[in-house]
């Protein structure tokens, strides 16, 4: 366990370098984007004078080095700058949006993991049966259906036609059901396929035969001896999916009018609101690193052979 703690400290220290690299990359990428932020912000009818005043105000007339220096020294003090659009601190803009994104990602991941693992186990245990084929077909649909299409379909059915669930927004507790389901569809499908493959491999192992030879009932063989081993590669998929959901919920958030960080990112890019975009990307990078550390610890818990 001490090795694991040292590993985590090492990972976190190394990730500081990663974050530094990310900050440079996103900074430069934004500046090579076509379109002058001052002109975009000032609007179509603004005079040349107004635009240059705005440019000065935003510090965009300074050299890149000076601009970056200002950005990174701010970051080190926990200051991500101000939004050009709203003039509010970027940290405040992000903080407002994080809970909605986080809850959506967590709920979708929980749905995806529970349903995906259960479906994968059933498919593996009943391989080549009708149930297995049915699960495979649904999973196939899950990975190939575009998110906005599935989202619109669900809205049409459950909100418009049946009127059971709210179509958009986040005002009611039930509002999360449709966006979370939409978001979970892909993960569920992916996790179920991974679980099935992993289970099939594990169920063919010698130690499964040992468990059966001991007289263990099927449930014990499948869950205690099978799934505990099969879950190790599935954990990787789940964590990758969670990471993707944190960052990639843009379409779902748009379709369902969900006030998450994905929409803030898209809107900010469109408005050339550099400070907000930089801030969001840095927060994402930090979140990914944290997620990886958590997963490293989980590996140690589920697989005794892994020690750092």
């Amino acid at each position, binding site marked *: 366990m001490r090795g694991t703690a040292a590993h985590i400290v090492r990972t976190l220290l190394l990730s500081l370098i990663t974050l530094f690299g990310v900050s440079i990359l996103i900074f430069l990428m934004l500046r090579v984007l076509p379109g002058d932020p001052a002109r975009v912000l000032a609007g179509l009818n603004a005079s040349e004078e107004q635009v240059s005043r705005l440019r000065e105000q935003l510090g965009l007339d300074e050299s890149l080095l000076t601009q970056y220096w200002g950005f990174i020294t701010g970051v080190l003090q926990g200051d991500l700058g101000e939004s050009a659009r709203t003039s509010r601190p970027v940290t405040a803009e992000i903080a407002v949006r994080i809970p909605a994104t986080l809850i959506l990602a967590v709920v979708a991941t929980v749905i995806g993991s529970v349903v995906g693992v259960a479906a994968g186990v059933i498919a593996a245990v009943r391989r080549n049966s009708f149930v297995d084929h049915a699960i495979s077909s649904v999973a196939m649909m899950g990975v190939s259906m575009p998110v906005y299409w599935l989202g619109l379909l669900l809205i049409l059915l459950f909100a418009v036609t049946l009127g059971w669930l709210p179509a958009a927004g986040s005002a009611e507790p039930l509002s999360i059901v449709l966006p979370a389901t939409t978001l979970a569809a892909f993960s569920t499908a992916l996790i179920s396929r991974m679980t099935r493959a992993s289970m099939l491999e594990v169920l063919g*192992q*010698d*130690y499964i*035969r*040992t*468990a*059966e*030879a*001991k*007289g*263990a*009932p099927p449930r*014990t063989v499948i869950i*205690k*001896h099978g799934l*505990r*081993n099969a879950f190790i590669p599935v954990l990787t998929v789940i964590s990758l999916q969670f990471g993707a959901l944190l960052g990639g919920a843009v379409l779902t958030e748009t379709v369902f009018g969900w006030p998450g960080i994905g929409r803030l990112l898209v809107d900010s890019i469109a408005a050339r609101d550099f400070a907000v975009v930089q801030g969001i990307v840095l927060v994402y990078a930090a979140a990914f690193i944290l997620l990886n550390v958590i997963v490293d610890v989980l590996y140690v818990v*589920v*697989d*005794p*052979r892994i020690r750092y």
Partner: protein
Amino acid sequence: MSSPVLSIRGLTTEFVTPAGVVKAVNDVSWDLYPGETLGVVGESGSGKSVTAMSILGLVQSPPGRIVAGEILFDGRDLLTMSARVLRQLRGSQIGMIFQDPMTSLNPVLTVGQQIAEALQLHDRGLSREQARARSIELLTMVGVPNPEGRYDQYPHEHSGGMRQRAMIAMAIANDPKVLIADEPTTALDVTIQAQVLDVLRTAQERTDAATILITHDLGLIAEHADRVIVMYGGKVVEVADVLSVFAAPRHPYTLGLMTSLPRLDVELERLDPIPGSPPSLIDLPTGCSFHPRCRVSKGRDVCRTQVPPLYEVGGGQRAACHFSEEVPAEMAVAARAMGTDAGNGAP
């Protein structure tokens, strides 16, 4: 002789494969008596493991299926009893030790948990502490040093020999009446094979289990078995007690196994392996399936046309050969060729 604990009658187990139906076990019958060690010997692929898996009801289906026969344990047919009842016998009345201890233990459970599980599966009333204490006793019995510490370790922290000892502990945990050891030392380093066999012997003596020792090594049989079943191409070709079989094998295949056995008193290059390769179990040779490799047959028609039954050849010895009486003479020839008295008792 007392009545057998386990009787196999006409057991036939097949595998349906794309290439055809593999007759892995083909009309096999034998008895296992209380307290004895029955050696089952034969080349790789002769159906030894499939016989063991058939007894435990663990033949994968599909592709496997038991198409005929009965396996009587305590007078009850294992093949027709319900899955639940059979499960209660597995691991309690019939213990099994597998070939490869590196892969036969669950990597994510401690060795101790796996032994304790064997106990608790068959004794609901056993508390965790009791199961632990008993498991540590078992680990001590199979000669695992520092059993308390070893209990909490995972399989990857144990050597092959230690793991196989743990497998033996698991198999004898519930004092089984029958212990099946399928090539228990084949996967182990030669230097620890003897130790593990000693442990197996001790375990067997303590529990007084009738033991089926499956091996491709006739030398192991000589040392550890009381009686021997020789399998070839899914069939039993010879049954005898160990002394008789080494003094006078009555099936040419058994003789072939003996002359190909490495011995201290025979130089390696003078060993005499059986020519040819094991038969295809999908398309067995006609008549006696050993005839294409047989040096006793000498091309006689009956070997190609008639399947030899297991003939009684005297002294409880039986051999499935049309010319079993010619085998001892052939052995003398082989012995002269090897420059040793191959026929004089066990190695």
